[in-house]
């Protein structure tokens, strides 16, 4: 069974990754997960300087999901290179470093410094964090700024450059088209959906920033629609993200056009979800008589014939 795929000049052993911010820097979960069975790890977002993150409460559970407002708490790029990268280099999987910044120059500085380091296979650019005042979503909802960041970063690296898009726009496919034109190798679809949770008794919002990013199975149908929208109109590889808990969830993303998937919030419940999903996709493909998991990508049967629909009972 062929499980892997290639992006630019990097071969990934399979199509299952762990999403930024849900797997730390890999070392926290080393006793719980065989990370060598993942296609790759998207690291926690890095900025130039360390960031404290937002005050508590930062998370709230919602039906089949959670709301977060971490605020990009991270150790900063220098501490990452010194303290985390040596461990990540020892792992038998690809390391995609996620970068978040407050200015175009900061994105360039962080990527420029990381691009010189050994053991980094690619970059994912977070232009879509809903929980910080500076940068973040203010870039991600502006098509021209997103394209500008992409082309500036493209000029700095030959490694795969993936732009992580926000669903909090009217037409996500326009952003995918813009970053493709600016030289991106792939897009991650999608970051969290802006949401809110309220405690009726205390009359307070449940997280300190009032609104935050919704994730988990609650957003899976939205994510599938966003991936489908991009896949229908832009020829660019897509990392599908949004509420994947099982191999079947992941296959749904491949069918609507994702080339790979990222496991996010599920890691908080079981950090080995990605490994289970990778194995599950492989056995699903085998059952379907396929030779290459890539045969599932974009293989949605969109004919208007629903006689094969299973009952929901």
């Amino acid at each position: 069974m062929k499980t892997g795929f290639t992006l630019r000049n990097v071969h990934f052993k399979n199509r299952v990754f762990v999403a930024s911010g849900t797997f730390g820097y890999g070392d926290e979960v080393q006793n719980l997960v065989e990370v060598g069975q993942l296609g790759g790890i998207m690291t926690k977002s890095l900025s130039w300087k360390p960031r404290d993150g937002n005050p508590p409460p930062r998370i709230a559970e919602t039906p089949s999901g959670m709301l977060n407002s971490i605020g990009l708490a991270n150790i900063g790029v220098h501490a990452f290179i010194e303290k985390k990268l040596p461990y990540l280099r020892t792992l038998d999987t690809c390391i995609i470093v996620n970068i978040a910044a407050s200015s175009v120059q900061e994105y360039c500085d962080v990527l420029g410094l990381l691009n010189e380091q050994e053991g980094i296979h690619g970059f994912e650019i977070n232009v879509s964090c809903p929980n910080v005042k500076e940068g973040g979503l203010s870039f991600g909802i502006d098509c021209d700024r997103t394209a500008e960041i992409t082309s500036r970063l493209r000029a700095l690296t030959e490694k795969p450059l993936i732009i992580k898009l926000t669903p909090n726009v009217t037409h996500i496919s326009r952003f995918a088209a813009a970053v493709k034109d600016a030289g991106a190798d792939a897009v991650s679809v999608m970051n969290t959906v802006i949401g809110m949770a309220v405690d009726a008794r205390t009359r307070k919002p449940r997280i300190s920033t009032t609104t935050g990013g919704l994730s988990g199975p609650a957003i899976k149908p939205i994510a599938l629609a966003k991936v489908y929208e991009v896949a229908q109109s832009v020829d660019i590889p897509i990392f599908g993200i949004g509420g994947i808990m099982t191999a079947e969830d992941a296959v749904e993303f491949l069918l609507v056009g994702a080339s790979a998937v990222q496991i996010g919030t599920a890691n908080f419940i079981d950090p080995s979800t990605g490994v289970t999903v990778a194995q599950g996709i492989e056995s699903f493909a085998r059952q379907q008589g396929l030779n290459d998991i890539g045969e599932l990508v974009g293989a949605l049967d969109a004919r208007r014939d629903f006689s094969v629909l299973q009952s929901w009972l």
Partner: protein
Amino acid sequence: MTLCNADVTGVREVAQGVYVLSFRNPEVARTVLPGQFLNLRVHEGLDPFLRRPFSVYRVEKDVVEIIFQVIGKGTAILAGKKRGDVVNILGPLGVPFGIGGEFTKAILIAGGLGIAPMPILGEHLRKAGKRVEIFVGARTVGQLALHHLKSPHVATDDGSRGFHGTVVALVESYFKEHPQTDAKVFACGPTRMLEAVSRFAQASFLPCELSLEGEMACGIGICQGCPVERINAERRYALVCTEGPTFDCTTIRLREA
């Protein structure tokens, strides 16, 4: 640390709406230390979605116990578990209470469900040769769960049992009669109570550790969901799950309740 299903051996109501759930897991039973917690997945469904953290209450041979009050969807499911059901456990997690050191007497202060880590803590302290004095506060007598606590001093807000007032006021009155110099304070309970304990311990020049709660998802430091503000530190926040849940009271600033 283990992540696995564990067989429930029983659930019993020990006070009004307060339950003890026991399950069999030799690894946790053998390795868990006082103040550490388990992150429990209460079922395989998606709502409630996240794991829930619980202090370990007691260990007996291969069986581990947690104690909880039914306050929402997750705890309602746990209270309905039967012998033979499973819970999915992740743990033991977190930094245990510091039970070593020079002190000879341990002052344990619990408010409400803050009794959760006290039976296992008392047991380990006694094994370490410490004398243990435990103070327990609750709103009313029906909510007191005093099992497995040796000769507890009791306070209730409504005076329905023991001292009429807060548990910290009870500790203060006890200290007036029995001044302590060679003691260490261990406390768990609501934030406002922990603030009062912290003020009291610092005014009495006693070392003091608090066990905190925090909204957390993963329990292992990856979601960054459970910060607590640190005092005079380079980093503004510590994580309750990996750097706590036990903290020296002089190192952190408690959040307003």
